[in-house]
Structure formats: C-alpha cells, structure tokens
C-alpha cells in the first residue's frame, strides 16, 4: 500500500493541483461576463451564485473541467451508447481520422529518419551535407509549410490521408535522424576493432552490432516523433477546410467561439498523444528488457 502511494502520490498531487488551478482560472476569467449579464438584468450576484455562473456558461473564456468532461462524454461514450460511435459528431470519429494520418506519418517519418541516419553514418558525403538541411527543415514554421504541401500534393492529384501524413512525416523524421545517428555511432572503438579482428563485413557490423546498440536511442526518438507526428496531423487538418479530425474540431470550435468544443478536442488530442507515447514506452521496456539493456 505504501509502495503504491509512493508511485501514485506525486502524480495524484500534481493532478489535484492542476484541477485547483483550472477551477480558480475558470472563476477568475469568466467572472467578468457573469457580472455583465447580472448588471444588464439588474441582479446582484452573491459569491456562490457568481461561482456557479462562471462554471455553467455556454461560451466561457475558460471552460471548467467538468464542462469539458461532460462534452467529451457527450461526444464519445454517450454516442457509443446510442450506437452512433462513428457519426460525424463523435469525437471518436474525429480522433480516428487524426490517428490514421498520425500513424501513417509516423511510420513514414521513422522509415525516412532511419534511412537518412544509415546514410549519414555510412556515407561521408551524406555525413558532411545532409545534417544542416535536416536541421534547416525544422526551422521553417510548420504552419507556413503545411498549406504548401497540401496545395502541391493536390495539384499532382494526391489528396485525403496522404498529404496530412506527409506533414506528420515532416515533423517526425527529425528526432529519428538525430537519435539514430547517435545510436548507430554508439559502439565504442573496442567493439569496432573486435569486429575488424573477425573480418566482419560492413553489413554484418550493421546488423549484429550497430543496429542492436542503437535500440535505446531509437525508442527515445520514437516517443518524440510520435508526439510530433500528432501535432503534424492536427496542423495538416487546418488548411484542408476543417472537414474531419481533431484539428477540424479545433478550427470549427474557434469559428463559432465554442470554447468547450475546443478544449474537449485539445484534451482528447493530449490523451491520444499520451496513450501513443505510453504504448511506445511499453514496447521500449519490453524490447530493452529482452535485450538485457535494462534490468
């Protein structure tokens, strides 16, 4: 029991602190609107009435956590109960749309990142030339380049899932390149000399030494890449006219001042990211344990 509290205690404390701050923020930010309303109706609000009002407005500046919670339930669990889990009003539907381009972009980004890292480690010309471009690619604001990617790909007849995945790839290949270059170079001189004493080929050195050695670096990179990929997918949904996806919900919400809808999309995106990163963390623990790299 003490052990469980030792692990969960800090997490619970932080969560409680976040909720306290959030409610306090909701009261403070929404109070002005509540007072305005009361003045127009010539009503004097007591403190408890004021607090109650700040937490039940239709378009609050900052929705209270339970409002967001209700909205999320209304658009997920409740829809499932009604048998309309994947209707266009369901957050599950929108999450699914975002998830599919996140995963596709993540897979493409990981593949591209590993390929570039192998090139950089094994080819002197690439070593000297590729990295500055890789870094430069990340200094361009994604919001600026995302519409261009959509437009260009549309012009060549590619639309739908792929352009969004390309934007995810654009963000997610970077941590993989950086991590894998470091990982593939992590074997020390002795290990490389040892391979030489056995007259190992470059291929054998790669598969038997460099690649296994890079695994801890790969998984760390994949976690960052996954989070970046989700951001890419959401950003990619904005210029497509906000038809579907969590990005579309964000944009749609901001058109109509639906702050509760915006926040519920935000929270859902965060939960999705946490779940995906957690999944990679789980794989990391399993793989590295099997490889004897963590104990």
């Amino acid at each position: 029991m003490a052990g469980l509290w030792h692990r969960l205690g800090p997490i619970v404390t932080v969560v409680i602190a976040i909720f306290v701050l959030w409610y306090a923020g909701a009261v403070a930010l929404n109070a002005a609107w509540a007072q305005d309303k009361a003045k127009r109706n010539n009503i004097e609000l007591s403190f408890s009435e004021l607090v109650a009002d700040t937490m039940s407005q239709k378009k609050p500046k900052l929705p209270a956590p339970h409002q967001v919670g209700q909205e999320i339930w209304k658009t997920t669990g409740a829809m499932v109960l009604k048998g309309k889990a994947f209707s266009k009003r369901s957050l599950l539907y929108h999450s699914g749309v975002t998830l599919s381009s996140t995963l596709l972009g993540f897979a493409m980004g990981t593949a591209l990142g590993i390929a570039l890292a192998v090139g950089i480690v094994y080819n002197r010309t690439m070593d000297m030339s590729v990295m500055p471009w890789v870094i430069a690619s990340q200094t361009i604001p994604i919001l600026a380049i995302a519409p261009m990617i959509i437009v260009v790909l549309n012009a060549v007849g590619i639309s739908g899932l792929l352009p969004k995945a390309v934007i995810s790839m654009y963000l997610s290949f970077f941590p993989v390149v950086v991590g894998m270059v470091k990982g593939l170079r992590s074997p020390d001189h002795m290990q490389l000399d040892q391979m030489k004493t056995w007259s190992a080929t470059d291929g054998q050195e790669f598969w038997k030494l460099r690649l296994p050695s890079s695994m801890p670096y790969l998984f760390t990179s994949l976690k960052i890449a996954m989070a970046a990929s989700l951001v890419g997918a959401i950003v990619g949904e904005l210029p497509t006219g906000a038809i579907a996806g969590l990005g579309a919900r964000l944009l749609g919400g901001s058109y109509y001042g639906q702050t509760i809808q915006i926040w519920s999309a935000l929270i859902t995106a965060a939960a999705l990211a946490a779940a995906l990163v957690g999944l990679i963390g789980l794989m990391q623990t399993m793989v590295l344990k099997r490889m004897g790299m963590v104990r």
Partner: protein
Amino acid sequence: MTSEPVISAKNLSLTFETNDGPVHALKDVTLDINKGDFVSFIGPSGCGKTTFLRVMADLEKPTAGEITVNGVSPEEARKARAYGYVFQHAGLYPWRTIGGNIRLPLEIMGASKAEQDAAVKEVLELVHLDGFEKKFPWQLSGGMQQRASIARALAFHADILLMDEPFGALDEIVRDHLNEQVLELWARTNKTIGFVTHSIPEAVYLSTKIVVMSPRPGRITDVIESTLPKERPLEIRDSPEFIEIAHRVRDGLRAGHEDDA
C-alpha cells in the same frame, strides 16, 4: 625450434603524427615468436606493448619495418582468421547470451549451426563455463565475463591468441585464478599466445618468453627466456628461480626508465 617463427618482426617502427609532433610508439622492434610460445609484453604505459600487439592483429599499420604473421602480412593473417583477440574489457553483447556471444564470430565467419553448437560446447568447457551457455552477461561476475570473452576468441580455432591486458580490470584473487586457467588452457590447446600486462608476477608466472619494453620511443630493452618448467603450480611464485626471473624483469624495467629520471 627449427620451424619458421609464427610471428616475426624486423626493425618495426610506428610513428603517430599528433598536433604535438610525432610520437614514436614503436622504434626498431625486432622479435621472433615461435609456435607454442607464451610471450608476455611488459612495460610502463606508452612503451608500445599494446601497439605492438595491435600491429600483429592488423589494427594498426607500421610506418617502417617488416612483420609477418604465419608467414604472411598481418592483414592477410587477419582475413585468414589466424588469431583470436581478447581486449581489456570483455565487451560481451548484453543482448546475446553467453552462447550467443561465442557464436557471434562463428556466425560472421559463416559456420554452420552444427559447427557453432560444437564449438560453443568445446570452448565453454575449456574456460570452465559449462552450463552458462543460456545465461546473459549481466548474470556473470567480471572474471566469468572475461573467461567468456576468451572462449569467444578461441571459438574459431585460431592458432594464435592475442590478449591485451585481459585481467587488468580484475582483482588480485580472481586474476590468480584466471592465470592458472590460462596456463591450463595453453597446455591443452598448444596455442601461441601474445599477452600484454603490466604485472611482473603475472608475466613471469605465465610466460616462456618475457619481452620488457620501455617508452619514448617504444622499444624492446630485454627479452628473457623463462627457465621455469611448463607445469606451474601457483606456489612456484615463491621459488628462488621465479624470484630471480622477476628480479631480472624489474631490472629491465628500471633500466628503461633511467633516461627519464
């Protein structure tokens, strides 16, 4: 011995170019190692003992002079898998079992599964690690890991075993134990062994030939042929003969240092 020496170096020099000017790691080193010899290289750091071993293994290229291993260049000898090399650290792959680590050079060399199985069994027995095939490196002590690394160097049946301070990181008691085992292994396999150390008792206890080296430039100052019998219990280290040889090694080391003082 009438046959050709296994390793023959003639006026071998190796100079590293550094920012502080050239460093003479080896200068005019001439030495023959015969089949079945156990040769120790001893000297202070910077005397070139490790560099010499690395030249034999084709991990460094000499800048002058000649060296042959099994009658051919070190590079050809390396490609013919003429030697096994044991580094100071065991360097076992954590993601492979002990058996898997020993298989590694055999996989690289394209040995069949049956050959691998036979070799793993044979060399594990040689280093007294039978039954540890399925264990992972972290489950073994430092001394056992180093034995596994020796087993790995023996796995592909090279005639020459080159060892670079293999027991340098281990404590005295473990080291004594491993020295005994190396002698037993040498007697059973009749390999030619090159052994770098900076321990005088270790060098005297193990070797048929002790090569004393000194730094700046790295060179050989004395070559001592041991008069100890091939059969050597640990107690031999208290015999007058042993102390006599150790004394000569110490003198050689001191002589090499005189120009420093």
